[in-house]
């Protein structure tokens, strides 16, 4: 077991974790942040996407000990002060949500993209979410929703 500190959604946590614990498991099981989803555990589906030190990562591919000292943003930290993030708002408006299982990861990939580039092109949006699999929407409403945020 190892002691680590994590800053998750602007809150400091001191945790004791096993060496093989995944960041995904620590977020879900130790912190109860179940918005981060377990989909494939091999880094293919993107359902477990979180933003770690400004970059999107698959939290199933990051050991908790590797995240030591990092700042992590999960879906629970996207809306602030009871107000939805423009990406979340846009997802509602453009009907970009169906079953919702990919949505947290999708939203985080979009948030991260828009923080780097406020007005992304459609191709850039598609590239940014290419690591987030969605089986329901055909992606088109998601791309539109993200594009609309950039155009506002």
């Amino acid at each position, binding site marked *: 077991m190892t002691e680590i500190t994590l800053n998750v959604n602007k809150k400091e946590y001191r945790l004791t974790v096993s060496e093989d614990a995944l960041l995904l498991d620590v977020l879900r099981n130790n912190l109860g*942040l*179940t*918005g*981060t*989803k*377990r*989909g*494939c*555990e*091999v880094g*293919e*589906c993107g*359902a477990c996407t979180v933003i770690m030190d400004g970059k999107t990562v698959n939290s199933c591919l990051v050991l908790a000990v590797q995240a030591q000292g990092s700042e992590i943003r*999960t*879906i*629970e930290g*996207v*809306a602030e002060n009871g107000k*939805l993030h423009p990406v*979340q708002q846009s*997802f*509602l*408006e*453009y*009907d970009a*949500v*169906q*079953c*919702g*299982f*990919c*949505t*947290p990861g999708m*939203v985080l990939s979009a948030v991260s993209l828009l923080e780097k580039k406020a007005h992304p092109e459609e191709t850039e*949006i*598609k*590239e940014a*979410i*290419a*690591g*987030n*699999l*969605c*089986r*329901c*929407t*055909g*992606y*088109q*409403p*998601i*791309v539109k929703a993200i594009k609309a945020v950039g155009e506002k």
Partner: protein
Amino acid sequence: MNIIGKREPRVDALGKVTGAAKFADDYNMPHQLYAAVKYAEFPHAEIVSVDTAKAAALSGVQAVLTAKDVPGSNRFGLGGDIRILADDRTRYLGDVVAVVAAESRALAAQAIDLIEVTYKELPAVFHPEEALKEDAPKIHEQGNEIVHHKLRRGNVEQGFAEADFILEHRFTTQAIEHSYIEPEAALAYPDEQDGFVVIGSLQNFYTSHKAIAAALDLPLSKVQIIQSTMGGSFGGKDESATMLAARAALLAQKTGRPVKMLNSREDSIRQSYKRHPYILYYKWGCRYDGSITAMELKAIADGGAYVSMSPFVTWRSVVQATGPYHCPNVKTDLYAAFTNNNFTGAMRGFGSPQVNFAIESMMDELAEQVGKSPLAVRLLNGFETGSVTATGQRLNHEVSLKHALLEAASASYYGKKWAENRLTKNKSNPIRKGIGISCAYRGVSLGAEGVDAASAVVYIQPDGSVNVSSGIIDMGQGAQTAMSQIVAEVLGINLNRLRFLQPDSGRVADSGPTVASRGTIMGGGAAKIAAENVRAVMEKTLREMTEQEQADFLFENEEIFLKKGNGKGKRVAGFDEVVARCYAKGRPLFASGVRHIAETNWDEETGQGDAYFTYVYGANVAEVEVDTETGRVDVTKFYSVHDVGRAINRSMVEGQIYGGVAMGMGYGIMEEFIQEEGQAKTLNFDEYYIPTALDVPYMKAIILENPDAKGPFGAKSIGEPALEMAAPAIANAIFNATGKRILNLPANLEEVLLGKKLRRKTPRASVSCKIGPL
């Protein structure tokens, strides 16, 4: 109408964008145990003995169960043959011989490795045509033929004799993994009254309910199923999810503690059923004018290890096997066979994607042979209102097939592009453009498969806020929103008054499965009746309030008006005021509604009858770019036209279309669940590819509305139609680009380039490693 047809935001979307939505694996309880499974080690073997002693002795292990520990019925499903725990034999590698509950997931996995099973290996069969041979190893006592559906109409011999020429092809389609992004999960726990609660991602929780109660040997009333928010299903979380939930419940019963059972992606793909692969032999008698004198079809579906939905899936194929085309002489024989592959069952489309691929490819071949455009031969042969189908059913509703075809063709400039692509044979450029068209009709809901009834409950609370519940579940398609819109329309209230309650086995009467694109037409129909029933109570109060015994009322924008002819008369009261009056008079506003349609019939011997109470029609156009050097197909644009009867929510109908097209495109060019000697080779998304944002084309959804008398506000279906004709549109576009006819799905690189699939014989990493939960 005020709310029907609007692009209302989904009632369930907010919690999904914030992460608040709770899926099955998000539920945990104190003192909870974790379960793991012991897999079959041979695709076909007799189980001689199972030694669980070492596993049970491991510290932290609370229970190890095998089939003999199941107090009630270990078998369930349509054929009564799916084992919760393998008993006599293993029949595919996803069979589970034993389950363990332990204090942690890792400990449970460790215990699994200590279970020793002695097998007597049996000869296995993996190909459905082999399985139907007389000397094939028998997988079940009754033999390997699961079902043989027949359809006989007219005289095919005579039809072929009258033909100018014969068109014949053998097509194959592949197994498909549903690929819901949420793997199956369930939490089972004992309740305070000697019963059990199961929270799970279960698509058809009424059937799960029966199987689980029977396994625990408890009455239905003592087992409560709570439907968690579902991360997709597409037909896939029926028996597979039931197996998982039943195993968790058995362990909870044994240990008296909550048990969490969670499939890893590998568990999910290894255990779950797939879309049926088909082998289809089509033979058409054709005339030079492009008409069809006879159709003969023999098809064999790989049913895998258990019956599952094979009889119903193949039945739909039989009904729709001629496509939406006139043909006086039809002979169809459809078989499903047991093999030692993963069993196959319900998946979006349910027997239509396979035949549609073949029929629509045949139709293009016919056009090619007679020198007409593919659009022209479809318009020549296509159904119209009043047409009689191959099953002898007269289509008395608005048959919009040709309208859909013309819309798809005009939106895409199909005729012009089709002709140009044929002429453009610039040999120096390896990238060739193609455009393809397809169309289909589809029987709505269950049809003559079974009892078709659904229930809903509307409860207007004393403060005027409304709870709606239904036995039709939302797996992401938007059923809750559609039903909420219907209720809000009937009551003339805003959508924000409504809250949809998660389905629960004790809350609403058995509504059958949420399958067959029946959610809106049946669940929505039930919700409409429930809302009308509750409105009738309000109307009684309103008649007293207005002292007009014969008055009719209009419920609109949160207010109630007297009806004046068909228009709006004097305002009577606000919605809340009437609700308060009702409660003051001792009339609680709580009502259920049942929608039951029984207007189908079927003759098994001849395949004649009114198969479905109504049908939907659609047409697709795909544009592709084919790299003739590599065989790579890029789908660039897609037009999808569907007559949905009435769009309850336009955004959601479009959402179904986009998602259906993407999934249909996966079927057409990318996806294949590969098994070799029963061993799955595509166990996770690193080997089973589904379309990403970079793969999908620009999609144009076109909605046609011809309200149907059977549907709520005229609404019919969209879920499955959206998918079922996409693959042949792409295959036909590939032909337009290259002159190569795709006979085997998917049209991946080697199929397009070589006309066959290449198979790597060496084991892949994921197969040579031992597979099991973490």
